[in-house]
């Protein structure tokens, strides 16, 4: 067994990995101040960042580790995990020979109820990503944060950033105030498709709806799992609303949302679409055909079947060219590229998942 696990060490090192999910952190809230107006600094100091959760200072479901982070990811000196570039280099980029990594900031910004504030904070986060990370480290690329509940402001932010090579994608969140396929979001997809920028649809967010159609779970162990449902909802919505019919070249990468469900969802959609297609006459192909054409997934948190070899069947059903490796550094459920896959992969399969699939989507040169 150890032989199987150890063998990929050298091989993946030579792959020069592309990591599609790295989480940078602010050292402190005030890190964004250089890019915020006096009005918004004062507003945040007085009212905070009003979202959809019951606490003023934290999310609804307390995580299981401080900052959701690996215990060993706190940099020397005590700043939050993901906030120290040198430590990120040592612990991630250099250690695993990562050639490119995509930053996905997750702190509050894109789901604030005050849309003007949301736009200001997203824009500040974009400036901060460049100043604190991508201008100092060429291996890293940023994600364009947008106040996606305001499509007009979002398109303006995309247009502002699209010509900077620092940005690799437009970032969206898997929980939104409407299913993402609905028309209010179409200008965002139009801009992304026009500029050939992928959408990085990252798991998470709180948008005010119960995590389940049957209400609120009690525990993080439920909510953490339930987040994968928000991703399934977004995939379903994007397909059924005809977003991929309207924007056929749009690329959506579903990040950290699990993926064993992807072929099952495709089969379920196809089976019931066959009977109910009169409701969605704008679709010209079975739902799964759009999924295979327009959707990608990232690997972390790795699927771990009870019988490891079943993972191969799942990937066969999804397509080996649809899957991008991700570590989720510095979070607690980080996937180590040397050990993440529970089954053995061929060299060709590794090359696709650890590198070439991502190269085909992101403009990284």
């Amino acid at each position, binding site marked *: 067994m150890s032989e199987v696990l150890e063998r990929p060490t050298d091989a993946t090192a030579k792959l020069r990995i592309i990591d599609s999910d790295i989480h940078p952190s602010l050292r402190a809230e005030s890190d964004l101040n250089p890019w915020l107006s006096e009005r918004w600094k004062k507003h945040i100091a007085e009212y905070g960042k009003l979202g959809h959760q019951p606490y003023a200072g934290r999310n609804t479901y307390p995580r299981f580790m401080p900052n959701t982070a690996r215990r060993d990811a706190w940099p020397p000196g005590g700043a939050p995990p993901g906030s120290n570039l040198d430590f990120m280099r040592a612990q991630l980029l250099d250690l695993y020979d990562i050639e490119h990594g995509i930053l996905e900031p997750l702190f509050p910004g894109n789901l604030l109820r005050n849309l003007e504030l949301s736009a200001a904070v997203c824009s500040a986060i974009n400036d901060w990503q460049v100043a604190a990370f991508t201008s100092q480290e060429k291996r890293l690329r940023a994600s364009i944060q947008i106040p996606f509940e305001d499509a007009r402001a979002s398109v303006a932010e995309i247009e502002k950033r699209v010509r900077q090579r620092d940005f690799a994608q437009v970032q969206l969140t898997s929980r939104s105030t409407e299913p993402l396929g609905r028309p209010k979001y179409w200008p965002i997809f139009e801009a992304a498709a026009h500029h050939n920028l992928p959408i990085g649809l990252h798991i998470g967010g709180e948008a005010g709806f119960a995590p*389940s*159609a049957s209400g609120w779970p009690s525990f993080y162990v*439920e909510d953490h799992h339930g987040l994968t449902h928000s991703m399934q909802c977004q995939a379903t919505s994007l397909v059924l609303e005809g977003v991929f019919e309207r924007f056929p070249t749009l690329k959506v990468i579903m990040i950290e949302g699990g993926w064993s469900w992807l072929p*099952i969802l495709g089969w*379920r959609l196809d089976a*019931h679409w066959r*009977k109910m297609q009169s409701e969605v006459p704008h679709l010209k192909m079975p739902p799964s055909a759009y999924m295979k054409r327009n959707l990608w997934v990232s690997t972390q948190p790795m699927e771990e079947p009870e019988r490891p070899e*079943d993972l191969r069947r799942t990937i066969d059903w999804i397509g080996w060219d649809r899957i991008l490796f991700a570590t989720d550094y510095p979070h607690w459920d980080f996937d180590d590229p040397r050990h993440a896959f529970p089954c053995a992969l061929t060299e060709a399969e590794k090359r696709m998942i650890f590198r070439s699939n991502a190269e085909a989507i992101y403009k990284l040169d």
Partner: protein
Amino acid sequence: MAETIDCDIHPGVPTVKVLLPYMDAYWADAFVQRGMDGFDLASYPPGSPIACRPDWRRAGQKPGTDLAQLQSAALDAFGARFAICNPLYGGTVAVSETMGAAICSALNDWIAAEWLNADPRLRASIVVPAQAPHLAAEEIDRKAPDRRFVQVLLPAGAEMLYGKSYYWPIFEAAQRHGLPVGIHAGLMYRHAPTSNGWPSFHLHDYVAGAQVFEDQLLSLISEGTFLRYPGLRIVLLESGVTWLPGFIWRAIKTWRGVRAEVPWVKRSPAAYIREHVRLTMQPFDAPDDPAIVAQLLEEIGSDEMLLYATDWPHWQFEGERAVPPGFSPALLRRITVDNPLATYPRLQESIA
């Protein structure tokens, strides 16, 4: 095939008027005086494709409302020895606790008098007002002595997740009478159908319905419901089935990572699921490919969990292909006979 046990069929309520004779004077009058009707579930609009297979639809009739058609199309055509009626109707989703209870009680009495009495092959679930667990428990106690009621029926999407202590009276009553609790697809619509709000299409609601079953299992496991009610058997009705293996993988993984949050959950989620949970097998969301179906069956990892069902008159399959390709004869025997008898002990009483 004459031994086959069909674990999910849906007799339809043509109008609330048929229930009035089974209501007390107050409610029998109230439905008339207030002009109240139209209590079909939004999850199954009567005219929608899911509600009735085209060749089972009768002009001018709501799906499933004709006993003679049920006997020929559901029982005779599939050689059913028993079939379990799961009526889907508005009592279970009413916001008024008392009106919900009145509709549910009348429906149970109507089913017994006009369907179960009419054909010895029919059995039924007790429909209960989940919006009022204490009234639900009373209704279970009232109907359980009729041994033709073999299960308690709840909608998949309720006001809260079923692991919450609010629902203990329902599980206590079910355990008291040795009845499984069936959770059927469909929503009360107290919450948005998805965690991202309200989709545009019925197709989306229906497809997303599979996730609610996952949410309910996570809730029942995490809250310790199976520890509190060790004899509890949960039957997932019309869930789609094939989401189960991937769900189990992620449930195990998440539990391994953060199980200290729910320290009373001592066993893997897979162990609770395989011991306590059963699933009816229509729809079985998979391509018509025996190799894929066989692979999924292997991943489910138990030949005791699936229960045969046609889901009549819902439109899930064509002709008589109620079982997807890829089921071995031995597994077929288990799902059509052995598993239903083990899940619904009351069925054995009529055989012996």
